[in-house]
């Protein structure tokens, strides 16, 4: 059984990852839908932008977030003065870093779901007087919903393990920003911390597998449901 301290770490990880998914999901859906449409001006730029967090070092992402959202950064300064909100070195900041890192993964999964949607249903909806926005809400999104859910679950599982961007932007504060991988890292820094690190690694592994399995189950369920 996890100890109180381990439960605290797990709770932090869940909170940070869940909030990250909730924040990035709407943006990821918008990006994915746009990228699933036929060629339009600026599509390749949008595509490259969505994939940036995948190719940049996570530490660099964390650093860029510090520059933008730090108290002296352009966005961070505005947030501080207007709402008194500080993202850097906070649990919300850990979520922001996680959201940015999970973003390409989510866009990729959701885009595949949109691309797999049969264009013929959208045509049928159009001749039944549904406008493009109406078709998105009533046809494209429901048909892609299982893929969207699977993308969100995968992103959540990956978010539980985000390290570089989180430690750079949000630091390693127990009870606030110390997620599973950060706790494992901290444990390894202490003499004789290997046993603790191993226990945390076991939780991390179990959660990741559970996340992947549920994403797979969602996909299978959707295929059964929509096979006409």
């Amino acid at each position, binding site marked *: 059984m996890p100890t109180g301290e381990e439960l605290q770490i797990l709770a932090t990880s869940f909170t940070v990852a869940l909030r990250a998914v909730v924040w990035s999901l709407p943006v990821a859906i918008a990006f994915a839908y746009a990228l699933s449409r036929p060629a339009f001006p600026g599509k390749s730029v949008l595509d490259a932008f969505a994939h940036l967090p995948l190719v940049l070092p996570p530490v660099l992402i964390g650093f860029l977030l510090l520059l933008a959202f730090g108290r002296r950064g352009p966005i961070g300064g505005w947030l501080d003065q207007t709402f008194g909100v500080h993202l850097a070195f906070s649990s919300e900041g850990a979520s922001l870093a996680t959201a940015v890192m999970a973003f390409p993964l989510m866009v990729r999964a959701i885009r595949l779901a949109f691309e797999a949607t049969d264009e*013929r*249903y959208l*045509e*049928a*909806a*159009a*001749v*039944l*007087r*549904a*406008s*493009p926005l*109406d*078709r998105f809400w*009533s*046809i494209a999104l*429901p*048909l892609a*919903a299982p893929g969207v859910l699977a993308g969100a679950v995968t992103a959540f599982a990956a978010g539980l393990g985000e390290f570089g961007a989180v430690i750079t932007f949000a630091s390693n504060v127990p009870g606030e920003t110390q997620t599973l991988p950060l706790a494992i890292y901290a444990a390894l820094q202490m003499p004789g911390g290997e046993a603790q690190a191993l226990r945390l690694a076991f939780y991390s592994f179990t959660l990741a597998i559970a996340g992947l399995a549920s994403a797979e189950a969602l996909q299978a369920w959707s295929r059964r*449901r*929509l*096979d*006409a």
Partner: protein
Amino acid sequence: MTGALTVDARLTRGAFVLNAQFVAPTDGVTALFGPSGAGKSLTLSLIAGLKRAEAGSVTLAGRALSDAPAHARGVGVVFQDARLFPHLNVRQNLAFAQKRAPRTLLTLEDAAARFDIAALLERPVRNLSGGEKSRVALARALLSAPDFLLLDEPFAALDGARRAAFLAALRAIHTAFALPMLVVTHQIDDVAALASHVVAMKAGAVVAQGPLAETAATPAFQALLARRDAGAALPASALRRGGEGGGAAWLRADHVLLASEAPRALSARNVFEGAIDAIEVEPDGARLVRTRTPHGAVLARVTEDAVRDLALAPGKPVWVIAKAHAL
């Protein structure tokens, strides 16, 4: 013609050039007829706004449709593959159309009763048979209250009695709702059963158009038909038939006998007196005899011997004979 669908659409797809120019009246059913690859379905997509023409225009009763996106054209489409939304059940598919309709032609319950799908309303669409899907698709299109209904071989998957029932349902809704229709088909019997007007296409171009009986008699139209389909459209009211049917029937030249005297004691139910109009020699030596009758022109395919023995010649009075079950 103000109350008509006027189509002038040009589109190039590699080596294929579509040049569809025709008028479909709004007071009848128009068949868009031609062999596969003639560009019939593409023409339908252009009218519905699902594809964009490179040049030309589509107007309905004077309103320019070609400027509007598909959802604002008021043109309904029944697709060959039904395209029922897989995440919705039958009732939800029908409600999708009803919710977005600007007016009510009929209620969802009326539509369900009319197309015999009331028992299917709560069923997921993947469990429906081909015939059931076609009927739901037709009901759904009707519930969206279109100004003009396009049908792309919606009965291609149906055969025999189910096909006849579907054709009868189409004729009934055309009459009940005064809904103009354009029906794509490559089956001449469907053209005769449904259409008052026909547009014939071949290789992307319109080769004949006009009222059914006259247009069907033109050489350009007959040239589109397979040899065994050569024939003429006769009004159903003039005929005694083996099967159910309305509108007109396609009387094949191979199913018609000619007699030079009034026949007596004959089982055939359709005997019309007429006069020979013309005799055409076919490439294989068979003779295609066109006879004018009170119900319109009839084609009969006979041998050279028969022409000689009966002394058939233009102007000669003859009796045209057709079995009821050949119709």
